[in-house]
């Protein structure tokens, strides 16, 4: 628990998708961490967690990226990112190195410090002073790596329950994969499509107006499908709602001006 | 020579040659000890509760249970059941307890002592134990208990003494070893309810190849 004497120094693992697609997610993560009393820095040397190489069987490239990331986050008390999948990948680094390799010990050390944002706030900091409002009904998709590798399930729900006016309506099969799977969605596009179509049906059936999740990959996939199907359900990353950063249109929605206009109409 | 190649591969994978005495120790002590693994709490009840659990679980598995005060009541109970089902013949196993019974209560139902055959409508056998954990019967083959009686007839009636009901499977194994000096009978049948299949559209249908009905005659001894 942070207190006046101790402000944890957190290195933000931005994730490439937040960096490129949705900076708001990274800014919202920073805001939440600061609200929880952390000092946040963004190490320059980070790029991607290396998961595309890892899951394509390219161990050498994965190791190189792992070493770079380990170095980038040396000296931070914690490493926190807005993605169960990317933080999960950081946890896999230790498996890349042989017993006795000094990099293995450094990777283990990183693993002990690396957290997905909602689990960091709840499990590590016991923080729940969320001051945000959301006028709508959401449904929550549990992304696979966060859920099954890192045990992220109740944490986002606990935090969301503190958001004023927000209602949570659980969908059927919230824990079933959305079909994104990194390179899977382009290697096996029609299977991926079936999975995300099923997901889209469950989302609609929940009656929620907003889909919320903790991983941008999955959210881009599901939002892209919902929009292609012409559905009105919007998609947002959980930190946007928790930090009250809702200025940007939801994922895949029209530009801000037009968006505001459409809302008025 | 397949055997040598297979064992050779395994040993290469394990990073050793033929196991020496030290390397054999772990496996041999396990074989000798026959220790229990984790037994679920459900199976660790006082005997009276085990009998109740057995009944509940067997009924859940779609077995029928008829409770009797003594084995002498078996012929009458069987007779009533078979008359109601309009079955005219009962094939019995040769176990001493069944042979010792006065079967006159069967009336016009014919009693035959033989192995099971295609077309048999009903059989009656003894049992070795009941396992409360899942309502499972344990039967085994012997000169007086042909296995075909457990599978060919449409109706299988099994005499079970409440005193032979144990909690977990493990207790049944231990009793089986004791009863047969460590020699396994040729066939041991653990039976939990009547035959069924869900191979057509995952819809459960009773009576696939084995008995359509399993009647447990539970002797509260």
């Amino acid at each position: 628990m942070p207190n006046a004497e101790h402000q944890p120094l957190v290195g933000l693992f931005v994730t490439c998708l937040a960096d490129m697609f949705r900076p708001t997610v990274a800014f919202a993560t920073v805001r939440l961490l600061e609200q929880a009393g952390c000092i946040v820095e963004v190490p320059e040397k980070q790029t991607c967690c290396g998961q595309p190489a890892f899951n394509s069987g390219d161990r050498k490239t994965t190791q190189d990226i792992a070493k770079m990331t380990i170095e980038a986050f040396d000296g931070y008390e914690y490493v926190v990112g807005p993605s169960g999948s990317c933080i999960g990948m950081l946890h896999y680094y230790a498996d890349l190195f042989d017993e006795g390799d000094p990099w293995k010990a450094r990777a283990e050390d990183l693993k002990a410090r690396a957290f997905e944002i909602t689990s960091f706030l709840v499990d590590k900091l016991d923080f729940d002073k969320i001051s945000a409002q959301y006028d709508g009904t959401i449904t929550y998709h549990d992304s696979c790596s966060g859920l099954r590798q890192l045990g992220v399930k109740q944490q986002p729900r606990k935090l969301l329950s503190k958001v004023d006016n927000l209602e949570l309506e659980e969908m059927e099969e919230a824990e079933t994969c959305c079909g994104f799977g990194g390179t899977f969605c382009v290697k096996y596009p029609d299977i991926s499509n079936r999975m995300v179509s099923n997901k889209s049906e469950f989302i609609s059936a929940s009656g929620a107006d907003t889909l919320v999740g903790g991983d941008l990959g999955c959210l881009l996939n599901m939002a892209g499908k919902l929009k292609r199907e012409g559905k009105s359900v919007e998609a947002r990353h959980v930190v946007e709602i928790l930090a009250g950063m809702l200025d940007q249109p939801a994922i895949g929605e029209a530009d801000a001006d037009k968006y505001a206009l459409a809302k008025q109409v | 020579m397949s055997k040598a190649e297979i064992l050779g591969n395994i040993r290469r994978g394990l990073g050793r040659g033929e196991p020496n005495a030290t390397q054999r120790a772990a496996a041999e002590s396990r074989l000798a000890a026959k220790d229990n693994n984790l037994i679920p709490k459900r199976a660790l009840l006082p005997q009276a509760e085990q009998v109740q659990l057995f009944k509940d679980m067997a009924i859940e598995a779609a077995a029928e249970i008829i409770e009797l005060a003594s084995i002498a009541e078996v012929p009458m109970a069987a007779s009533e059941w078979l008359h109601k089902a309009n079955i005219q013949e009962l094939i019995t196993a040769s176990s001493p307890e069944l042979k010792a019974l006065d079967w006159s209560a069967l009336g016009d139902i014919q009693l035959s002592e033989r192995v099971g055959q295609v077309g048999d409508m009903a059989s009656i056998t003894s049992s070795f134990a009941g396992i409360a954990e899942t309502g499972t019967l344990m039967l085994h083959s012997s000169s007086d208990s042909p296995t075909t009686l457990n599978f060919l007839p449409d109706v299988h009636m099994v005499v079970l003494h409440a005193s032979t009901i144990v909690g977990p499977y493990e207790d049944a194994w231990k009793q089986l070893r004791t009863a047969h000096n460590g020699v396994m009978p040729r066939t041991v049948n653990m039976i939990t309810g009547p035959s069924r299949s869900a191979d057509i559209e995952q819809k459960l249908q009773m009576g696939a190849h084995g008995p359509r009905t399993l009647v447990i005659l539970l002797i509260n001894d």
Partner: protein
Amino acid sequence: MQIKSPEFKENARIALQDVGLQKALGNLKAGFPVKRAAAVERMPEFEDLRDQARDLKNHILENLDIYLEQFESKVVENGGHVHWARTSEDACKTILDICQQVGAKTVTKGKSMVSEEVNLNEYLEKNGIEPVETDLGEYILQLREDHPSHIIAPAIHLNLEDVSEAFHKHHHRPKSDDPAVLMQEAREMLRKKFVAADVGITGANFCVAETGSTIIVTNEGNGDLTQTLPKTHIVITSIEKVVPTLEDMTLFQRLLARSATGQEFTVYNTLSTGPRREGDQDGPENFHVVLVDNGRSEMVGTELQDMLRCIRCSACMNHCPVYGAVGGHSYGWVYPGPMGSVLTPQMIGIENAGLLPNASTFCGKCESVCPVRIPLPKLMRHWRENEFEKHLSPKAVRYGISGWGFFAKRPALYRWVSRSSAWFMKKMAGKKGRINKLPLAGGWTDWRDMPAPEGQTFMDQWKQGKR
């Protein structure tokens, strides 16, 4: 069985459009996973049992040669025979020899995936022996000249009409749309076969080293008739199925049915120990066990050793969203789903089966339900690495990953690529906020929109001091 794994993508494409198959797969999804969850709920010790089962299997594999030899000696002591088969060919040949020695014309078969693996039926037929499948699902498939698409519910890909059609054609009776009537028909037809068979062949779920027993687990009772009525009983099984004692077998029994069908216990758990004893009134006079290797012994001591813990419950495929979408036949060989994606490359070669371990989102559902905690995603990744090292991965993947890796290892360059891509995609999207068609990303935009980036990257904005 013909290998169709290299056509996985095409198989999947067809499967996704097959209305009947999709309907049938719906039955699976609504059935096994729900029932398993309920069974697990009733067994508070379930997770601890899984831990113990994993540890016990590891112990067995560390002592596999010892337990196998012990098992063999006990079978022999009880008057049975053990045959070791290095390959499918060895296994088939061994079984044919036994059948010929007893002058067999027809054999009945209980359900056995190992017999599918070695392609036994075809081999026996070619040599003039008629194999008759007796498991209801397998029987339906045999009539249709089809193969299992699931390891415990072999005909899961069929609907009632398919079964009705096949029975009508072969039994020459009126069609019925009542599963109970159809099952009754099969029961009657197979009664005659059970009695007429010279040999009965079953698989084994476990082989008990302590006693030399093999055990089969069935709901129908077909395996029991198969092994009790003919004069000769042949068990075809594989080397990793050995367990030390009856108590050890019981640990796996507690997990098997619950993980598979969600039953508390399967109806018939039957142990066979040698041939009939003196004085017995029935039972087989000859008892043979064929221990099949087929690449398993090479897995010992490697990362794939964990796969040898598998008890063939099917929980991994029952819960797999990819299996649920495309069905078992898409995988193109005997073992489908996650366990198949690990095992098949070992048995038919990664060059034939490379698409299988790639056909996973690594969602981890399979591992989360595996009763012996096999790290299936990790083992599928093992094959992807193997494929990558052997330069068997598709060129697009290899070049794509090395190109991407080049940038990912250089933060400044990576920034530049992210910045340009964000700018470009934002531009393409215009005010719509999403892109309908993106060059080089057809796999994505054929099916869904690509949400547009906000514009500037986070790293750029952060550097500019935005908070």
